[in-house]
């Protein structure tokens, strides 16, 4: 290694908008398996990686490739985004670009003022930019090569209590962005911003205002402090040009008396035109919910045979304990069945998909046993669908809660407006599982019990190598046989996993990576095993 001066670099300065491999809309659509370009890796949110260097036959040789410790992090929820081997990760107010093969830092960005509100679920990439939401409710665009701040778009007033944990979704030249928190009586929306300038292009309000259809589903003025936020990234069908997004709970969460009616569009799946934000259809999973069962869980898009007919499906394992199959062109309800063994709040679904409620299972001042618990049968962590097995895999929790209610009054400024809450039912302690459901019937094909784990949070990925990767609250990252659920490999990351894993490939090597506690951990086969 010699040192000298005047390398004559100056003659060849990069133009401001130079030639780094830019992420195009075409790239996002194609979702080359070597990259992980969107929160779910693919617009259809199947989280199925076509990489198969790591497979059932050699996964036993998988080993940790590197660990990146995120300073001051704790229970990271970000899903890494990987472009040409460069990995972008985030925590509230911070974004890091890492070398995906070594975990070495390339740049980091610190957002100021650094309000402390978490989590942050990840970034989006488009062109030469990285996009992230912030605790003070901005959408921020950074230069993907240096982390330079390019612009900030104000989503809402942080003083009102809004913030932005959701990973943005890049569609064409737009950045789709949701908002939180509904539990504070703040009404939600879904926005689209110009990827180039940050200018807002449309906003769809999830709580209809007076004169708009659906406003009549809110008694009196209750629509004004109604919730319905959009805190988890949805999915997209490029052919239909439709964005699918799950909507959060109504407020106050546990007291339905002050907001009689179905409370549209809380706890709905909504289908919006990606260009205009116009509502195409909606399906409400839990009308007039009183258990805080946000319906934000990932909408997974699959084209499959349904009762002998090829259909464009949207499936979701809902926090309320039912697995739903919808027609994503029309929103028609096709099937629903519990994926939870202990479910006591409904006896089933009508043929339109409305829950047949058990009247007594509503929160009371003395407390009511409710299964699933408010924490939900599942939550933000991602499920996966493998076309190879035609199974839908969900990381979920069996367990009940005792739900209480009180009278609450809305206070502005981001104060909780929940009308009390819930505790774990000591007689039905929580237990997490990975369950494999038949795509169209929802029948449980196998389950993997995560012994000793009671807090969910670790999502799933399936791979063409015949594997499903899962995590648990004790820090184990585990490879399961996608057909049988048999564990084939595990690694103790040492910290609770509350994020969903990804896979990517650089220079011919497949990696799996997941945020575990305060670290990002990546795995690959040993040099020889990879051959």
């Amino acid at each position, binding site marked *: *290694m*010699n*040192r*000298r*001066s*005047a*390398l004559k*670099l*100056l003659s*060849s*300065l*990069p*133009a*401001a908008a*130079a*030639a*780094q*491999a830019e992420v195009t809309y075409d790239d996002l659509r194609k979702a080359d398996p070597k990259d992980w370009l969107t929160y779910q890796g693919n617009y259809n949110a199947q989280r199925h990686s076509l990489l198969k260097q790591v497979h059932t036959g050699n996964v036993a040789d998988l080993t940790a490739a590197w660990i990146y410790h995120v300073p001051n992090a704790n229970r990271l929820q970000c899903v890494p985004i990987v472009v*040409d*081997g*460069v990995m972008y990760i985030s925590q509230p107010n911070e974004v890091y*670009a890492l*070398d*995906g*093969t*070594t975990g*070495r*830092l*390339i*740049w*980091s*960005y*610190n957002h*100021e*003022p650094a309000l402390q509100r978490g989590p942050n679920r990840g970034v989006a990439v488009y062109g030469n930019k990285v996009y992230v939401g912030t605790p003070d409710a901005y959408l921020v665009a950074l*230069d993907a*090569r*240096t*982390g*330079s*701040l*390019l*612009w900030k778009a104000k989503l809402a007033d942080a003083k009102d209590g809004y913030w932005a944990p959701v990973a943005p979704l890049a569609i064409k030249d737009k950045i789709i962005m949701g908002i939180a928190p509904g539990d504070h009586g703040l009404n939600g929306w879904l926005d689209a911003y110009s990827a180039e300038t940050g200018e807002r292009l449309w906003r769809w309000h999830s709580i209809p205002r007076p004169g708009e259809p659906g406003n009549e589903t809110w008694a009196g003025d209750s629509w004004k402090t109604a919730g319905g936020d959009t805190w988890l990234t949805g999915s997209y069908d490029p052919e239909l040009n439709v964005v699918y997004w799950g909507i959060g709970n109504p407020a106050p969460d546990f007291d339905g008396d002050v907001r009689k009616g179905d409370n549209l569009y809380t706890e709905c799946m909504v289908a919006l035109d990606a260009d205009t934000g116009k509502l195409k259809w909606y399906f409400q999973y839990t009308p007039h919910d009183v258990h805080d069962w946000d319906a934000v869980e990932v909408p997974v898009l699959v084209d499959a045979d349904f009762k002998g007919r090829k259909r464009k499906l949207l499936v979701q394992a809902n926090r309320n304990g039912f697995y739903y199959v919808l027609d994503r062109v029309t929103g028609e309800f096709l099937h629903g069945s519990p994926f939870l063994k202990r479910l006591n709040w409904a006896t089933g679904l009508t043929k339109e998909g409305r829950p047949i409620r058990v009247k007594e299972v509503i929160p009371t001042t003395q407390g009511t046993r409710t299964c699933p618990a408010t924490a939900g049968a599942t939550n933000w962590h991602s499920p996966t669908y493998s076309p190879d097995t035609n199974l839908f895999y969900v990381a979920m929790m069996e367990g009940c809660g005792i739900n209480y209610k009180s009278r609450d009054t809305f206070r502005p400024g981001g104060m909780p407006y929940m009308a009390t809450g819930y505790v774990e039912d000591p007689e039905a302690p929580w237990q997490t599982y990975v369950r494999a459901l038949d795509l169209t019937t929802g029948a449980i094909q196998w389950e993997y019990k995560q012994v000793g784990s009671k807090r969910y949070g670790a999502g799933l990925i399936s791979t063409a190598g015949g594997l499903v990767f899962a995590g648990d609250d004790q820090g184990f990252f585990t490879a399961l046989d996608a057909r049988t659920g048999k564990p084939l490999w595990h690694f103790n990351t040492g910290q609770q996993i509350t994020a969903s894993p990804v896979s990517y490939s*650089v220079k011919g090597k497949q990696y799996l990576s997941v945020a575990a506690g305060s670290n990002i951990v990546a795995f690959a086969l040993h040099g020889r095993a990879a051959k």
Partner: protein
Amino acid sequence: MRLAWLVLFPLLAFAQHDPAVVAQGRELYNRSCTQCHGADGTVGDRGPALAARRRYIRSSEEDLFNAIKNGIPGTGMPGSALPPDDVRKIVTYIRSLRATAIDAPIEGNTAKGEAIFNGKGRCRDCHMVNGQGGIIGPDLSNIAAERSIKAIHEGLTVPRPHIPTGFQPVRVVLQSGAELRGILKNEHNFSLQMLDMNGKLHLLSRDEVKEVEYDTQSLMPTNWAQRLTPEELKDLVAFLSRQARPVDGPRQPNARRRR
């Protein structure tokens, strides 16, 4: 060059703080604190640098005063027996060390300064300000909140003793014979990460690299005292000394930088 500095910017570094108090604080500091915190709060193996660029745990007068007066229990930081008045002077001194350009931006024609930044100086070829510009040098959008006026001025006129991390110019020859030129973002025995002159990031294992040539000179030109008139230089610094991102609430002194 020293002279130019004194003529153009007398006492600006400490503008906010009474220079007499700062001088007394400095003397007190030098008597009892340097063995752990280094001269002018810059280094020390036994205590943290009190005024080097990083995020500070304590920055309010109150917090600094308490830390010095009472020490920090459970750590190597002893309490001081100095009278409270003297401790206050030390606090003023430490805060003056930490003062950045935006605390007291210098006078000058900022419009002319900006024109030099974009034109004659070609600064924007290498530096981004508010989302516009090059990527080979650090983003200067917040430089005034990160650096003192003195440091900005020296940045333009005095060659660096060493090239800051993230900006080392290199020529890398790969085993394949291909050659890359750019700056190192990071490196280690086993890998290096570089941004080439086309703005592309390269993630290289040392196995792939045949040769790395490190330039001894930063890409940042430091002959602006020769290339610009004193008036132009002053206007340029006046422009830079106002480049700070707006923040709600009190600014964190020397907020940590990305790279």
